[in-house]
């Protein structure tokens, strides 16, 4: 397909104007001098007519159209020079943060475009900053078990039980990171949406989790609070999200207590634990990865506790929903949008 060009359009437009103008002028000339098709037959008459036409039609049109075309092209070239120069600057700029298109020399007409580009660049910067902070956070979290493990291995008779625990902690962390990258990729390219009922999703995930919970002295129950609907979702992602909530519940629920998974009211999946309930402000901080790992460790009593919840929040965002906490009921809930609205990923 041929790309539209302003220059070509201008030439075509002016040619059209000239053609229409010429026709009208010709008609006028013919009427004024009472010329007819028959008068053109004679030799003298035709010469006279041609002279008249070139004087009154050709010349004025040429005098008007050609300068207009030249002037137009000149203006276009001048106006776009700013864009061309800017393109060269951008091409030569290394891939660093903080790059913006200089809007100083830009003509008013392209400002909406320039503003949109600059807006996108600053959003990309923010995302890159978030990624860097996150990578630093992760490195920090992995370094701690690594340090413990290498110290323990220096020992002449290493405590294998403790080592195993650190290894499983690292394994979990790596699993979480993989899940997070997948959740993000999913949010970027929403693919493979399936329909599923929340009750099926809850019973399946809870069943899968039950053996682990029982082994650790907690039990799992399922509760249907009504209104559990069918949703369009990426089932495996939601199942992982729910498993993360169960993991979290396992951490805060004392031995011998029940963790309840439930659906409803409305399009909602919840996990009720035996902890103290999570404060909304604290949840917001965890989700935005604002607390440092050290602080988190003190607050949650376990490393990496918050990463799981951050992942749940991202997976929910990709489903147009959110993660919410109801501390007085000791519930964390995955809330989905009502059917028919907002099922497109955020």
């Amino acid at each position: 397909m041929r790309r539209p060009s302003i220059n070509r359009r201008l030439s075509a437009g002016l040619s059209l104007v000239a053609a229409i103008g010429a026709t009208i002028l010709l008609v006028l000339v013919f009427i004024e001098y009472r010329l007819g098709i028959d008068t053109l037959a004679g030799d003298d008459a035709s010469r006279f007519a041609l002279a008249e036409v070139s004087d009154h039609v050709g010349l004025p049109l040429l005098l008007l159209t050609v300068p207009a075309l030249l002037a137009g092209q000149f203006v276009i070239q001048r106006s776009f020079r700013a864009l061309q120069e800017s393109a060269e600057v951008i091409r030569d700029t290394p891939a660093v943060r903080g790059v913006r298109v200089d809007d100083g020399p830009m003509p008013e007409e392209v400002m909406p475009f320039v503003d949109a580009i600059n807006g996108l660049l600053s959003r990309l910067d923010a995302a890159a900053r978030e990624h860097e902070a996150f990578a630093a956070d992760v490195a920090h979290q992995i370094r701690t078990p690594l340090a413990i493990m290498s110290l323990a291995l220096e020992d002449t008779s290493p405590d294998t039980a403790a080592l195993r625990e650190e290894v499983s902690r690292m394994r979990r962390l790596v699993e979480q990171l993989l899940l997070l990258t997948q959740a993000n990729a999913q949010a970027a390219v929403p693919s493979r949406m399936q329909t599923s009922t929340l009750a099926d999703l809850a019973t399946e995930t809870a069943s899968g989790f039950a053996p682990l919970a029982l082994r650790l002295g907690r039990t799992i129950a399922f509760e249907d609070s009504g209104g559990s609907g069918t949703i369009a979702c990426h089932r495996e992602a939601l199942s992982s999200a729910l498993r993360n909530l169960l993991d979290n519940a396992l951490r805060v629920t004392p031995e011998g207590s029940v963790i309840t998974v439930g659906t409803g009211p409305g399009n909602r999946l919840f996990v009720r634990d035996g902890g103290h309930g999570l404060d909304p402000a604290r949840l917001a901080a965890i989700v935005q990865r604002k607390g440092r790992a050290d602080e988190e460790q003190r607050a949650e009593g376990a490393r990496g506790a918050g990463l799981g919840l951050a992942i749940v929040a991202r997976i929910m965002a990709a489903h147009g929903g959110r993660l919410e906490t109801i501390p007085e009921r000791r519930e964390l809930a995955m809330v989905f949008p009502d059917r028919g609205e907002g099922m497109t990923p955020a």
Partner: protein
Amino acid sequence: MFPKITARGFDSRVGGGHCSGMRVLIIEDNERLAGLVMAALARGGFACDRAGTLAEAGSALDVAEYDAVLLDLGLPDGDGLDWLRQRRRGGFAGPVLVLTARGALDDRVIGLNAGADDYLVKPAAIDEILARVRALMRRPGSRSSPVLSFGRLSFDTVARRATHDGVMLDLTRREADLLELLMRDAGKVVLRQRIETALYAFDDVVSPNAIDALVSRLRRRLQACSAGERIHTLRGLGYLLEEARE
């Protein structure tokens, strides 16, 4: 034709001596990882063969019968799942546990669709691998004998008789059916609904606590012969048969 025996592939059987006759094929190209898994399986009483490539795995399956196959996906001569799909189409029906370093969200589903019976993401704990292999062998249609065993419990699916440590359990027909269901999926949740459909006819009127009552009766039978195996109730979900704790 016998499989080509090379240094890398087809290691000799490990722990063949005290095994229960259960034979497992491990298809894994990482020698060290395969060695560790084989040693663990040998401790668990399994005889193991190893294939380092899909070609070797194919020849192994052609000459020997295996109770289970442990399959890694990224192998030097091809993709494990494609291979499995082909074998399944070719009529191979043995239980397959896929063990892989891939861990993308949909891989599990894709793996199960390709014909795997279970799916574990590396690094998996050795105990987990052992538990899954044992669970695979309890599946219906497994080559093993018609006697299910779990911990000290055994259930003869043909004679419909259960024993604990050799002591016969006195079970009604429904209790025996329930025990079989729980034992086939021992260590996992058996959903209430599944029990309902398996134990009662379509037009049977099942009162809400009929299953609860049945489970408590079975529980009492197990306690009567001081079995350590316990049936957990998971409210709203179902039941789980758990191995005796030491």
